[in-house]
């Protein structure tokens, strides 16, 4: 039922592999590219075509174990099989794996071992699942038949009756005193001074009070009796004789009151103690020494060897060691404005890549986590597609058509402003640019672009080839139609680039999202660029996923488009809280083309990955 089981090194070698059927495509390659490299190892399974894949790491030896099976099968034993395989493989080939030459070894002898492990597990699970039909005698129906009622099991009956009897007894005991207690003290509340359980000095001097105290004392024993009765009825364990009973009851009642938390009686009033906040632990738990945290789990290893091992040897990293450090890392990332679920995913991913690794003598867990996180962040932020827009434009130019870029985003993030910055940059490179004013909704949007176009024209020197023109059709019209007209106009008039400005919209506004999807579906622009604020935190994920979802759901196309990249605006305002850059690239997997860093046309920059990573990890 399995299709493939394989053992890989992180370097890219297949150490051992077993195919049970012919494998279509390369599901394992896809797993590595889509999940493991993208730092999404926090998830536990991955579906590719008709395959479901599960994997586990042996970080100590840098191995990956992968099992692929048909995704329609509900195989419950795969996780356990993976763990078993991992254990078996690492013990069987421990010498080869410990040697420096892991790849050179011969692992073909693992075949029968794996088959046996698989068979055993399969049998175990099929057995536990097997359902034998119940005998008729065991069913409820049988009890209702005449035979059944006659043949009612003799063993069960008394116990049930016993219970009922006991319950009735308990009810009687609990009920009778209540009816009798409708006296003076019956509804007395705890706060009333006379009902105070602790006698106060002035109370004792007053004879009347003393009397009342006495009656109250009676009440207490009476209360105790109730408890006793109840206990008797509800106590299904061994019977105790009288004296023991009393003691047990007292102890039990006593346990209901925590003497240390008892209030004080002031002037006969019982005052409930203030809420105790306990000793506030001012120490930051994260300031704890890493060394201490690391040595905890290993402290158990006893003897001289253990001591030396602690001192010189390598320590294995386990979840307990990692937890506090990762927790700290997570809050740190959130402080840097990374969306909280993304920092969780990242920490999970780092954890899965560190568990079981050996830690050198002087290495600390926090530096290891930090190093790992740095690589992970670099991976995420490094674009996986070309960000060379000029090269794309050249390619379109060679086919004598205009290259179109659509700017989308929520309200007020700076779509028009950054569009004009991009336009300025293109003009510097001698392109003929057409700006399509497709924001037909917000008043002043067209005028805003007109001002930009006028400024940009004025900035052009007389001899340059670059040229900018505004394509406008006023307000209230269909944006998709205007964009289409603009592209046709650009193609006819030899423009190189069309920049399409759209109206800002909230990601939850369905009618507007539909119209955006229509604009994209009709015009099929070369690039869809999402403009987002660097100030945004958790919201970034929501915006991007909903925009992407809308482009997918409302397009009506077979292969719907998605966001191709981002522009991060207002980047100069956030100091080192650059988390939005990470949230956005992680959510979409697409690169950040530019960052907006100021008010002028030249304030458009390329994102520097190392700078963002540094800012994110800086304290």
């Amino acid at each position, binding site marked *: 039922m399995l299709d493939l089981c394989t053992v*890989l090194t*992180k*370097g*890219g*070698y*297949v150490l051992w*592999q077993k195919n049970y059927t012919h494998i279509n495509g390369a599901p*394992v*390659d896809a797993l*590595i*590219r889509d999940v*493991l*490299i*993208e730092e999404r190892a926090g998830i536990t399974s991955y579906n590719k075509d008709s395959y479901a894949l599960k994997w586990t790491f042996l970080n100590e030896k*840098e191995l*990956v174990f992968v099992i692929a099976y048909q995704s329609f099968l509900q195989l419950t034993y795969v996780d356990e099989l993976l763990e078993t395989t991992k254990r078996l493989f690492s013990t069987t080939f421990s010498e080869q794996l410990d040697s420096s030459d892991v*790849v*050179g070894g011969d692992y073909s002898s693992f075949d029968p071992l794996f088959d046996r492990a698989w068979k055993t597990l399969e049998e175990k699970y099929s057995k536990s699942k097997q359902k034998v039909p119940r005998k008729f005698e065991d069913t409820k129906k049988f009890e209702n038949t005449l035979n059944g009622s006659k043949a009612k099991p003799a063993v069960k009956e008394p116990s049930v009756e016993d219970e009922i009897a006991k319950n009735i007894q308990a009810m009687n005991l609990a009920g009778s005193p209540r009816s009798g207690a409708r006296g003076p003290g019956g509804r007395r509340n705890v706060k009333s001074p006379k009902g105070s359980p602790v006698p106060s000095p002035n109370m004792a001097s007053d004879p009347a009070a003393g009397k009342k105290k006495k009656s109250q004392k009676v009440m207490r024993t009476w209360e105790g009796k109730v408890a006793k009765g109840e206990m008797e009825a509800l106590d299904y364990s061994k019977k105790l004789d009288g004296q023991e009973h009393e003691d047990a009851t007292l102890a039990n009642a006593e346990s209901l009151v925590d003497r240390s938390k008892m209030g004080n009686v002031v002037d006969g009033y019982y005052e409930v103690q203030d809420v105790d906040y306990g000793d506030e632990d001012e120490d930051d738990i994260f300031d704890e020494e890493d060394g201490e945290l690391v040595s905890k789990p290993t402290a158990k290893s006893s003897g001289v060897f253990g001591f030396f091992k602690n001192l010189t040897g390598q320590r294995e990293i386990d979840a307990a060691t990692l937890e506090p450090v990762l927790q700290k890392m997570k809050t740190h990332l959130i402080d840097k404005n990374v969306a909280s679920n993304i920092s969780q995913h990242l920490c999970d991913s780092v954890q899965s890549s560190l568990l079981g690794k050996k830690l050198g003598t002087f290495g600390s867990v926090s530096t290891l986590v930090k190093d790992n996180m740095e690589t992970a962040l*670099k*991976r*995420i932020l*490094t*674009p*996986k*597609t*070309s960000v*060379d827009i*000029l*090269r794309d434009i*050249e390619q379109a130019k060679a086919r004598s058509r205009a290259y179109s870029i659509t700017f989308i985003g929520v309200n007020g993030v700076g779509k028009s402003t950054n569009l004009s910055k991009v336009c300025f*940059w293109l003009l*510097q*490179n001698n392109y003929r640019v057409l700006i399509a004013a497709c924001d037909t909704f917000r008043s002043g949007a067209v005028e805003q672009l007109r001002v930009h176009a006028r400024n940009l024209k004025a900035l052009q020197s007389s001899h340059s080839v670059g040229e900018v023109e505004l394509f406008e059709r006023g307000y209230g019209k269909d944006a998709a139609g205007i964009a289409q007209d603009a592209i046709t106009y650009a193609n006819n008039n030899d423009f190189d680039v069309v920049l399409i400005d759209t109206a800002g919209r909230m990601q939850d506004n369905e009618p507007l999202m539909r119209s955006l999807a229509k604009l994209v579906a009709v015009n099929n622009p070369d690039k869809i660029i999402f403009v987002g604020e660097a100030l945004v935190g958790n919201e970034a994920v929501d915006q991007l996923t909903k925009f992407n979802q809308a482009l997918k759901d409302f397009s009506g196309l077979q292969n719907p488009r998605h966001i191709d990249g981002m522009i991060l605006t207002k*980047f100069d305002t956030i100091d080192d809280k650059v988390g939005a850059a990470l949230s956005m690239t992680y959510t979409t997997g697409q690169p950040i083309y*530019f*960052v907006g*860093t100021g008010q002028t046309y030249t304030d*458009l*920059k*390329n*994102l*520097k*990955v190392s*700078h963002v990573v540094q800012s994110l990890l800086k304290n």
Partner: protein
Amino acid sequence: MALFDNPLALIALVVLVLAIIAIGLIFIVQKKANNNTYLILGATDAGKTALFTRLRYNKKSPTITSMKENEATIQLVDDSGAAITKQPIQLVDVPGHERLRFRYADFMPIARGVIFVVDSTTVGRSARTTAEYLYDVLANQHTTKSRIPIIIACNKTDLFTALPTSKIQTLLEAEINRLRATRSAAVEQQESSGDAIADYLGYEGQDFKFEHLENDVTLIGCSVENGDLNSITEWIADLS
């Protein structure tokens, strides 16, 4: 000037200066000699890990997309089993995935040579992405500064769909010619003061050719599948 009147002080000064220069020279020579690392770069599925296995174990091994670098110190031998380099070389296979290849920059300072593997069968379609990576390697400040020689190994010549080496050269040169125009026009990096402009590859006003570069760039055909790697080992032997 009183100092130079004393001949003893003058001699002492000269000796000191000479000593410093000597130490510096030794240091530089040693550093040069220690640079015996060869990088295997290239796009995914070009055959980098397979080439690495061939050079190291002299065998074929099934491979899959790498997630980490493979490193080894090896002694290359010729057919008769004699060593072809004076000392063992360090070989590093850097993953070709777009998200992971940034690691190559860490190895550039210690690189003696770069083996850039190209898939001859698909380069026609992926010329742009291949050339972008190659451009980054060529324009790397260490490549230009220490004139690191580069061999472009056109792999998979055993397949009949493979393009000839000369064709691949024209393809890559044409792509880099376009790229250097767009790259120099790109928006500058944030936090840069504007002086860190990458060197312009080749001669301005002329179409890009590999021979215009200051470092040696050679193109050869090879086949890891058939073990046809003599041109690569010879190239390494010439360098070390």
